[in-house]
C-alpha cells in the first residue's frame, strides 16, 4: 500500500493540477453531452448533473489510493468515477440504457458504480451508502489493511437516521472512513434552512469525530482536507467529516428549472466556478488544450456508445443472485503524484 509523500512541499504538482482540470472538464463535458442526449430522447428516465460541484468529487478522490473504496459517488459526483478510471464509453452506454459492462442496463442512468475500480453504486435513499462505507472501513480495520472508505452525501442526507448510525458507528470503532458532506444548499427544492438548525459539521464533535469545512469550489482545499483525513484514517486516527460548501448550479434533475433558487445566489456562485478558478492557476492555453482533449474523448465515447446494442430483454431476469464466483470490490486508479503507483489502467472486462 503506497503512503502519501512527506509534506515538504506543495503536494500537488503541475501534472496533478492539470489532471484535476482534465477530470473536472471531463465531468462537465460528459454531463453536458448526457443532457443533450437526454433531450434528444436517447437517455431514458430523467437526467441529473453536478454542474458547479466538480471540484468536490474530483478533489476528494484525487487523495485516494488505489485500494481505497468509494461508497458511493452520488448524482453530483461523476468526477469520482472518472478519477477512479471508469470507462467513458461504458458511462455513455449506461446513460442510454444500452448493454454495458458496469450495469448491463439494470441500474438507474446516473446511479452506477464500477466495482472493478473500487466504486460501489449509490442507492437513492441517502445516506444509506454511508453506512455501507462504514462497514467497508470496518472490514479494512479488522484485517489490518491500510485502506480507507470514502462516502459522499448531501446536506439533506444529514437529516436521516442512517447518517447518525454511520457517524456514531465509525467514530465508536475509530474506523478509517471519510465522510464528505456536499453542502449544495438545496435538497431537491428544500433549502438547508428547512433541513436543520445549526451546522452539520459541528455535529461531528458530538460524535467524537473531527469535522472540517472547506470551500467546495476549490479543488485544492477539497483535496488537502481529504488527504489529511486519509492520512489520519490509515494511521488509526478514526473518521473525519468534511463539509464541502457549494451550490448546485442546475435543478435537481433535467425536469427541474430550479426557479426556487434566487438568481442572485446563483450569480454569486457562478463567479466562483471551480473550473474557472483552477484554470487561472493552470493557464488559459492549457485549459484550451484540455478542453480540446476532453471534447475528442467524449466524441469518441459517444460514437462508440451509440453503436452499442440495447440489452437483450431475456437478461432482465438474470443476475438477481450471485451464482458463480463472488465478486468483491476491486482497485481503482490513484492518479495523485504523491502515490508511488503507476498511472491508471483501463478496467479489465
Amino acid at each position, binding site marked *: 500500500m503506497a503512503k502519501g509523500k512527506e509534506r515538504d512541499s506543495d503536494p500537488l504538482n503541475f501534472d496533478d493540477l492539470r489532471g484535476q482540470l482534465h477530470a473536472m472538464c471531463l465531468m462537465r463535458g460528459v454531463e453536458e453531452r448526457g443532457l443533450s442526449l437526454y433531450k434528444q430522447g436517447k437517455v431514458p428516465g430523467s437526467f441529473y448533473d453536478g454542474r458547479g460541484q466538480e471540484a468536490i468529487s474530483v478533489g476528494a478522490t484525487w487523495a485516494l489510493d488505489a485500494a481505497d473504496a468509494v461508497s458511493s459517488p452520488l448524482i453530483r459526483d461523476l468526477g469520482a468515477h472518472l478519477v477512479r478510471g471508469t470507462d467513458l464509453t461504458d458511462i455513455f452506454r449506461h446513460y442510454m440504457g444500452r448493454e454495458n459492462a458496469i450495469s448491463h442496463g439494470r441500474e438507474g442512468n446516473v446511479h452506477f458504480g464500477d466495482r472493478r475500480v473500487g466504486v460501489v*453504486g449509490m442507492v437513492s435513499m441517502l445516506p444509506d451508502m454511508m453506512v455501507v462505507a462504514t462497514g*467497508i472501513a470496518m472490514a479494512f480495520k479488522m484485517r489490518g489493511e491500510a485502506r480507507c472508505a470514502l462516502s459522499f452525501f448531501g446536506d439533506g442526507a444529514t437529516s436521516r437516521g442512517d447518517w447518525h*448510525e454511520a457517524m456514531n458507528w465509525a467514530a465508536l470503532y475509530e474506523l478509517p472512513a471519510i465522510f464528505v458532506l456536499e453542502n449544495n444548499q438545496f435538497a431537491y427544492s428544500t433549502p438547508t434552512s428547512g433541513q436543520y438548525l445549526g451546522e452539520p459539521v459541528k455535529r461531528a464533535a458530538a460524535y467524537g469525530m473531527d469535522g472540517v469545512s472547506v470551500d467546495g469550489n476549490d479543488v485544492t482545499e477539497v483535496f488537502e482536507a481529504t488527504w489529511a483525513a486519509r492520512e489520519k484514517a490509515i494511521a488509526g486516527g478514526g473518521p473525519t467529516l468534511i463539509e464541502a460548501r457549494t451550490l448546485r448550479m442546475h435543478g435537481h434533475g433535467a425536469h427541474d428549472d430550479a426557479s426556487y433558487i434566487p438568481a442572485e445566489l446563483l450569480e454569486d456562485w457562478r463567479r466562483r466556478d471551480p473550473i474557472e478558478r483552477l484554470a487561472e492557476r493552470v493557464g488559459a492555453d492549457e485549459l484550451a488544450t484540455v478542453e480540446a482533449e476532453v471534447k475528442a474523448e467524449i466524441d469518441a465515447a459517444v460514437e462508440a456508445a451509440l453503436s452499442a446494442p440495447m440489452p437483450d430483454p431475456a437478461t432482465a431476469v438474470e443476475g438477481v443472485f450471485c451464482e458463480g464466483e463472488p465478486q468483491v470490490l476491486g482497485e481503482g486508479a490513484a492518479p495523485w503524484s504523491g502515490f508511488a503507483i503507476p498511472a491508471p489502467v483501463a478496467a479489465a472486462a
Partner: protein
Amino acid sequence: MAVRTYLQAITDGLREAMDEDERVFVMGEDVGAFGGAFKVTAGLQEEFGTERVRDTPIAEAGIIGTAVGAAIVGMRPVCEMQFSDFVACGFDQLVNVAGKMHYRTGLAVPLVLRLPSGGGFSGGPFHSQNPEAWFMHAPGLKVVAPSTPEDAKGLLTAAIHDPNPVVFLEHKHLYRRIKGEMPDGSYETPFAARVARPGTDLTVIAYGAMVHSALEAADQLDGASVEVLDLRSLAPLDEEAILASVAKTSKVLVIDEANRTCAAGAEVASLIADRAFELLDGPVRRLATPDVPIPFSPPLEQAVIPTAQRIAEACRELLDY
C-alpha cells in the same frame, strides 16, 4: 450422533463456520460477552475474540448496512437482530441495499441475517412476529426457516457458504423445546423442502414451529395418512416438492404462523392452484394467524396463532370433503 437443542445447533453451526473460515464474523446487540438475548452466541466471544464476535450499538440499519459493506470487500458477516421484529428498523438496508446489490453492480453480498422470530410465549406485538413474507417479496434475498436442530445447523452452514444475503428465521419457541440427534461435523442442508412425515390422504404444508404443530395434529388423526411437508426454504420455494406431494395426496392444508395476507402459504396456495389444479380433490385450505399484531395475554395469543387442535380440525374437514 449427539443430541442437541435447536438453539445449541445454531451455536454449533456458528462456531464451526468461524473455525473453518476466518472471514466469518458475528455481530449484533449484546451478542458478545453476554452471549445474546437468547444465548445463541454464548461462549463465542471468549473463543474468537471481540473483533469476530462484535457487540454493536443499538442500530439495526447500522448492523445490516455495515455487514453489506464488509461483505462486498470479502468478509462473511453473520448478523443477529435481537428480535425479528427489529429488522423493520433495518429494512431499507436489507431490501434496497443488500437485495439489489448483485443485480445492480455484480458485487456479491454474502451475509446472513439471523432473525429470532415467532410467538407462543407472551412476547407481545414487538417480540413475536414472523416477518418472512416481507423478504420473500424482495428480490435478491434468500429466506430459510428451519424446524429441527439438524436443519438449523445445516441451513445456517449453507447460508454462511452462500454468496447471497440469506435471511435465517430461527423460531424462538423451538430454541430449547426441540431437541434432536445431529450428524457429526460440518454439513449443509439444501434450500429445499423435506417430507417430515409421509402420507397419502392429505398434505399439510408448514415451516418453522408450525411443522411441530402439524406433526402433533397428524398424530391426532387416527386412520388418516397425513403427509407433513416442511418447506425449510421459503425463497427459493421448492415448487417441485410441493407439487410432488400434492400429486400424491390431492388435498392440501397450508399453515402459516405469520399473518394471513400475502403470507408464504398464500404463495404456496397460488402455486398449487396454478400448476396442480387437476390433481386436487378439494379446495386448497389455509390456516394462518389473522391480520392482527400478536397479543400479549395467553388466551389472546392462543386465539390467533394456529394450534395443533385447529390444524387437526382443518385436516378433518378436508379429509371429509
